[in-house]
C-alpha cells in the first residue's frame, strides 16, 4: 500500500518543482532584504545557498517556510503559498534553524520526543522514528545525554534528527555545518546525500564555499540578490568564462608558445601565471576535448612537451571570488550606464 508521502514523492519525481520563487522581494529598508529572486527547486535535489553573511540567505528561507511574507512576487511551496499552509502542509517540511534551539535540560531522546509530539506523532511512532533517526545521525549511544552535554557537532546532528523525525519531504537547513570541524561537516553532507537519494528535497544554506561541491544545484547570493544558479561544474565554468587547461613549460619557451596558441581558433584566451614561472592557463570551451589536440600540436609543431598538462579545476573559493567580482563589475557598469 502506498503512503501519502510516497504518492507525493512520485508526483514531484515527475518533474514538479517543490519550491518556486518568482520575482520575490522582501524589502526591510536601508538596502536590507531580498530582491527579485527567481528560483526553482526540483524534487530530489540538494540546492545549496551560498553567500556572505547578511546576504539574505536566512530571509529567503523564512519566506519559503512561511515565517516572512514577500513584499513583491510570489512564493510557492508544494504549489501553495506558505502563508496559507495547512497543518498538513507544515508537516511536509523539516526545518533546521541556524542556532541550536533544543533544550539543554532535556536528554537527546526527550528532545526528539518533544519535536515528534509537536508534529502530532503517537508515542509508538515516535519511539520507532527516534531510534531510526538517532542511528542515522550516529547519536543512538548518546540518547540519554542531556542537550547541555553535547558537543557542537552532536548538537547539529541532533537538530538534523529532529528535523527528520516526522519524515518530511522538504528539508530546509540554515547553515547546518556552521562552526563544526571539516570531518563532521563531511559526515553531515553524507547524511544529506543519503536523504536526497531517498527522494527528499533539500535546501541548505552555508558560508563554506567549498560545500558547493556537495550540492546538485548552487545558488550564489550577494546583497539580497541571486547572482546565479547552476551546478557546481557550471559555476566553475561561469567563474572562469569556460574551461581551462593548465600547462607548465620551460619559461624560455613561454613567449613562443603563447604566440602559437593564440593563433589557434579553439583557444579563447591565455593567462600567464605570474606566481608559477612557465605556467599558462589556456581558456577553451571544452578542456577534455581540446587537451589532447593541444598537446599534439605543441609537440609536433613547436617540439615542446609541457611538464604539466591537465584540465584546471578552480577551488570553489576562487569560483566564489570570481563570481562576486564579476557581479560587482556588472553592478558598477550598470550604475555608470
Amino acid at each position: 500500500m502506498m503512503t501519502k508521502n510516497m504518492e507525493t514523492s512520485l508526483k514531484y519525481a515527475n518533474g514538479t518543482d517543490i519550491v518556486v520563487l518568482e520575482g520575490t522581494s522582501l524589502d526591510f529598508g536601508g538596502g536590507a532584504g531580498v530582491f527579485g529572486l527567481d528560483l526553482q527547486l526540483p524534487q530530489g535535489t540538494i540546492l545549496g545557498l551560498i553567500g556572505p553573511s547578511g546576504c539574505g540567505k536566512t530571509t529567503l528561507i523564512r519566506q519559503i517556510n512561511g515565517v516572512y511574507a514577500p513584499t513583491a512576487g510570489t512564493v510557492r511551496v508544494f504549489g501553495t503559498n506558505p502563508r496559507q499552509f495547512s497543518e498538513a502542509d507544515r508537516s511536509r517540511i523539516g526545518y533546521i534553524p541556524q542556532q541550536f534551539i533544543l533544550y539543554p535540560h532535556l536528554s537527546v531522546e526527550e528532545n526528539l520526543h518533544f519535536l515528534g509530539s509537536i508534529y502530532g506523532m503517537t508515542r509508538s511512532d515516535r519511539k520507532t522514528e527516534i531510534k531510526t533517526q538517532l542511528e542515522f545521525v550516529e547519536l543512538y549511544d548518546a540518547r540519554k545525554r542531556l542537550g547541555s552535554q553535547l558537543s557542537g557537532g552532536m548538537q547539529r546532528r541532533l537538530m538534523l534528527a529532529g528535523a527528520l523525525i516526522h519524515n518530511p519531504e522538504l528539508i530546509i537547513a540554515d547553515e547546518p555545518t556552521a562552526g563544526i570541524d571539516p570531518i563532521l561537516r563531511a559526515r553531515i553532507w553524507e547524511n544529506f546525500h543519503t536523504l536526497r537519494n531517498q527522494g527528499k528535497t533539500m535546501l541548505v544554506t552555508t558560508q563554506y564555499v567549498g560545500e558547493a561541491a556537495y550540492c546538485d544545484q548552487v545558488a550564489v547570493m550577494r546583497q539580497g540578490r541571486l547572482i546565479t544558479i547552476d551546478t557546481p561544474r557550471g559555476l566553475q565554468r561561469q567563474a572562469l568564462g569556460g574551461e581551462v587547461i593548465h600547462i607548465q613549460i620551460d619559461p624560455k619557451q613561454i613567449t613562443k608558445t603563447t604566440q602559437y596558441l593564440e593563433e589557434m581558433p579553439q583557444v579563447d584566451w591565455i593567462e600567464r601565471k605570474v606566481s608559477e614561472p612557465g605556467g599558462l592557463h589556456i581558456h577553451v570551451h571544452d578542456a577534455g576535448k581540446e587537451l589532447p589536440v593541444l598537446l599534439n600540436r605543441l609537440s609536433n609543431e613547436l617540439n615542446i612537451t609541457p611538464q604539466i598538462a591537465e584540465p584546471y579545476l578552480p577551488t570553489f573559493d576562487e569560483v566564489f571570488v570570481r563570481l562576486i567580482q564579476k557581479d560587482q563589475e556588472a553592478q558598477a557598469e550598470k550604475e555608470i550606464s
Partner: protein
Amino acid sequence: MKIFLTKVIAFFAKEFHEVRRQPRLMLSLIGGPLLVLAAFGATFQSSNPFVSTVLVWPKEGIPGLDQDQAAKFIGANFYLTGVINDEEKAMQMLEDGEVDVVQIVPSIQTDQLSEGSRPEVKVFSRTIDPNAEAWTRSLAFSETNYFNRQILTLEAAKAHDKAIEVDSSLDGALKDYGTITGSFDNTELERAYAITTELQPVLQELLAILPPESLSQGNLAPELSNLYNDIHILADDLEELEQVLKKGELPVRQERLESTIEEIKSLRASIDIFIEVPTINIISPIRETYTNLRGSAYNLVIFFAPSVLALLVQQMAVTLASLGLVRERQMGSFEMFRVAPLRFSQLLIGKSLAYILFVSIAGGILTGLLSLLKVPLPVIPLDFLALLFLLALASVGIGFLISSVSRTDSQAIQLTMLLLLLSIFFTGFFMPLTGFTWPAWLIAYLIPMTHAITGFQDVMLTGTSVGAGELEGLIFIALLSYGLVLWIMRRQYKQVLD
C-alpha cells in the same frame, strides 16, 4: 482531538522535565522562603517602632505624680534612657542623636489648675519616620491622659476629705438653724444671719476643690453632677436668705429659712453619696472590657503565614511563566514552532498545565512545612485546593502576560520584581487596603495575591470556607490575563508575517 492533546502534552512534558532536572531551583523556591519565615518567627519581637527617650522631670516634683511610677509607665512603650531635671541637656541629647524623643514635664501646682491654666507636657523629636512620629504622638497623648488621671485622682481624694469637713459644717448649721424659733427678734435675726454668712464660704471652698464640673457633663458621673447642682442651689438659697434676713417680711424669712434647711439636707445627702463613691468612678467613670470570641488572636508568624504562602505561590508561578515565553523567543524556538503544525494555544495550555502542577505541588509542600511553625492546616482541603489551583492559574496568566511584553530575560525579571513590590504594598499584605483610596483597590483586585490572602486566612486561620468573591476574582484575573496574552502574541505573530 488526540493530536491536539499530543501537542499540548508535548509542552507539558517538556516543561515538567526541565523543572525536574533543576532540583536546586525547587529547593530554593520552597526551602528559601520557609527558612526566611522560620527566621522571622524565631527573632521577631515587636512591630512597634523603637523610640528612645529621655524624661525631664521638675525638681520640685508634681503633687499627685510619682516620678518612678511615671518613668515605669513611659518605659513600657519607649526605651527610656533616663530621667533628668536639665531641659537644655535633654535637648542637646536629642540634637546629638543620643535619644529620639525628649519629653519635658512642667512644674504643676494644684492652684494653677484651679486658676484655669493648662500646663503643657512638651514632646520633641527629630524623626523622619512617619510611623515613629505617629507612634510617639499616640504615646504622648496616652501619657498626658495618665498624668491627668493621676492628678485628678489626688484632687478627688482631697475633695472627699473636704466634703466630709463641709458635711460636718452643714450638720452644725442645721443644728444652729434648728434653735431659731421663728420670731426673728434681733437676737435670732443676728444668729441666723451669722450662720448663713459663715456657711457661704464653706460652700465656695468645696466648689474650689471638687473635680472639674466638666467631668460630670454627659451624665457620666451623676454623683458629681448632683453635688454641683445641690451646692449651687444651696448657695443661691443662702444668698436669698441673707437678703430677706436684712429686710424681708417675717413670713418670707420663715419660708426662706425652711427652704434653706431643706436644701442643706439635700446637699448632705449628695455629699454622703459623693463620699461613698470611689474616686476612680468620679474621674474615670467609663472603663473598657475586651473579649475575643475565638479566645485570642494568633501570633504574628502564624497570622502572616497565609499571606506569605500566597506571595510565594504567586511569585513562583509568575517567575516561571514570565521566563517561559521570553526564553523560547530568545532561543529562537518560536521560529521552529511557527514552521511546525502548531497553534499558540497548544503551547500556552501545555506550559500552563506544567507550571500549575509544579506550583501547586510546591504550594502543598510549603503548606505542610508551615505546620512545623504551628500554622494550622487548612480545615476544608477542597476549598484550599481550589484556591491554590486558581491562584496558580491566575499567577501563571500574569507571568505569561509579562513574558509576552518582555524582549529579554532581564526585562521579564524586572517586571516580576515590580509585581512583587506592588503585591507587598497593594494587597493588604502589610498595610490594610482600607487605608488606600479606590485607585489602589483597582490595582489590588488585579493582583492574584489580594484574593488569595483573604482566602487562605479563611481556610487556614478562621476555619471557614473560601468566599465566592475570592474565587471569582482569581477566575477574572486568569481570563483577563490569558485573553491579553493571546491577543498580544497573535499581534506579534501577525507583525512578523506581514
